[in-house]
């Protein structure tokens, strides 16, 4: 299957001052450090990790919203045009973004119908009457009612605002939606509404998602494939159900076991300490400072993402030196 979007060895570095003051020494923060993935049409890749792991930066790099330090993004087997160019802007109709905070993403002084139709005006699609018609149709798609066309964002609930943001992203008929924590600001009962809506839209319109979230439950619910990030790198990647049922990387195992459940209690792998400062990433495996299984080799050599060879999940790849150790074998 040909890829809709392919990211190859993406890197994004920021120069920051590690000491305070204007004369502090400069150092390099590697927000994203060699991330590769592919997204097939109509499929969902979930990107999970804790704050500061580079998952949002990866999402923005994938759309060219921020320039990559190195690496390449290919869209439908062609290199992505330089960001800002006319060709890139035309391509952006087909690659859209949805952010966490719907109120921040909407203009408070513009009726929502106008905002939903705005991408059509920007891309010069159709006459005013057609734009209006398509806005109504996009509102129906996301479960908004036509009488809400002239409402302002503050007159809507949080869930309805996120529907407005989705309608606006969908109106240009995109092939890929990058969703950055799209439901984290919503209440539990409303989260379920939006999750169901995203899945329905995928069924009906064949949209692919890059779904970025810290919420493992929701990521499992919507994703076909999941990539787990830690300090700018993907440490484990594989089929969603298999990855959560039998995580292989010690970090993924800690992350999965940290999720509180309402069911029977499970064994918990409690990590010591905080994630390291991203400016001062540990040598070797970045996780070795918190990993209960780390050895001398982990302190020295950075592990690469390698196939694990699981019979039930052929695509599972893990970046860990110790993954084949007996202590780390997944309990069946």
């Amino acid at each position: 299957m040909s890829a809709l979007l392919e990211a190859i060895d993406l890197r994004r570095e920021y120069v920051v001052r590690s000491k305070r003051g204007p004369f502090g020494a400069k150092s390099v923060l590697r927000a994203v450090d060699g991330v590769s993935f592919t997204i097939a049409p109509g499929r969902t890749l979930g990107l999970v990790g804790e704050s500061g792991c580079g998952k949002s930066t990866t999402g923005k790099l994938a759309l060219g919203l921020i320039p990559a330090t190195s690496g390449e993004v290919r869209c439908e087997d062609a290199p992505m045009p330089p960001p800002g160019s006319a060709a890139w802007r035309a391509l952006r109709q087909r690659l859209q973004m949805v952010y966490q905070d719907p109120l921040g993403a909407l203009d408070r002084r513009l009726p929502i119908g106008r905002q939903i139709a705005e991408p059509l005006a920007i891309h010069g699609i159709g006459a005013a009457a057609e734009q209006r018609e398509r806005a109504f149709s996009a509102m129906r798609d996301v479960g908004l009612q036509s009488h809400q066309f002239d409402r302002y964002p503050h007159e809507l609930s949080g869930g309805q605002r996120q529907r407005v943001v989705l309608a606006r992203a969908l109106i240009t008929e995109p092939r890929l939606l990058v969703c950055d924590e799209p439901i984290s600001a919503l209440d539990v009962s409303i989260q379920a509404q939006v999750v169901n809506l995203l899945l329905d839209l995928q069924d009906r319109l064949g949209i692919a998602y890059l779904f970025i979230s810290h919420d493992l439950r929701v990521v499992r619910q919507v994703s076909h494939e999941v990539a787990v990030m830690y300090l700018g790198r993907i440490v484990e990647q594989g089929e969603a159900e298999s990855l959560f049922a039998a995580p292989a990387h010690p970090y993924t195992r800690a992350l999965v076991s940290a999720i509180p459940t309402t069911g029977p209690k499970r064994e918990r792998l409690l990590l010591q300490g905080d994630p390291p400062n991203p400016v001062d990433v540990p040598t070797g495996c970045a996780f070795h400072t918190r990993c209960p299984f780390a050895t001398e080799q982990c302190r020295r050599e950075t592990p690469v993402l390698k196939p694990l060879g699981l019979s039930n999940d052929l695509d599972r790849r893990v970046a860990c030196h110790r993954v084949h150790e007996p202590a780390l074998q997944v309990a069946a």
Partner: protein
Amino acid sequence: MAAPLVAIEGLTVDFSAGSRAVDGVDLQVAPGEALGIVGESGSGKSVTWLAALGLLPAKARIGGSVTLDGQELVGAPRRTLEAVRGKRIAMIFQDPSSCLNPVHRIGWQLGEALALHRGLDRRAATAESLRLFDQVGIADARRRLDDFPHQLSGGLNQRVMIAMALAGLPDLLVADEPTTALDATIQAQILALLGGIRRDTGMAMVLISHDLGVVSENVDRVAVMYAGRLVEEAPGADLFAAARHPYTQGLLAALPELTGPRRRLVAIPGTVPEPGNMPTGCRFAPRCPIADPQCAIAAPPSRRVGPMHRANCHRTIDAGGSVWALPKAAE
């Protein structure tokens, strides 16, 4: 239940005329007990406890009764409340860094709490600070006392807040979304820490959270709130295995599973009512799949549906069944 530590009876909170944020809440916390309060935004779960401690702005009108060991707190003079707040009942909040003073070293802030609640002098306060930091698992405590809040991570700041809350040796800790701003692995650390402290000190805890999983794993008893009212109250295991109120059942069904086959989520239709525009009768009725005409007329009674298990609902729901599995509930 033995004599409760804290008893809330018929608590009401009005912010402005016709906008009642908390409407007749009855709750009890036994000594040493861990009670979870679950609800979505606007359910009144935080306001209930802010009102109990007299922490709401002056325009809020509070009715009903809140007693601590029989002593009335609603309308109590400032002096009485000051002897309770931080000393007998401590509170921690969602965002630790905004609760700490950014311009003072954390050792100074902790020392202030110790001087206020325990009357310790500086030397004794430093020794006690080191002990508290050790208790909340802050490594290298002596050096950390000289740090400012911005030098610490979110997880460490929450540990500092917990240390400050423990400074008065409280009988009850009210933890309002204590881990919501933290990453999953740090959340697990903080919840394990709170559990350990409760085991060591016998302190009671009220854990307020929107996260059913967090509550399920860390409390003995759970109260579910919706739109300012209590809808269900039960021991944790009973509530999560056999919820009886349609709202609680809906909340549980809206939560994606972490294991097993993926199923379509149940989405409770509609939204939480706005404070100035509450439905008459049962406030959940407009979103409820089994609401009948009487639900729109009268507020539902609190009914006993099992040992220590109460649900506020007009309809009788069989144990084990979910109203959201009925054909009518399908979207």
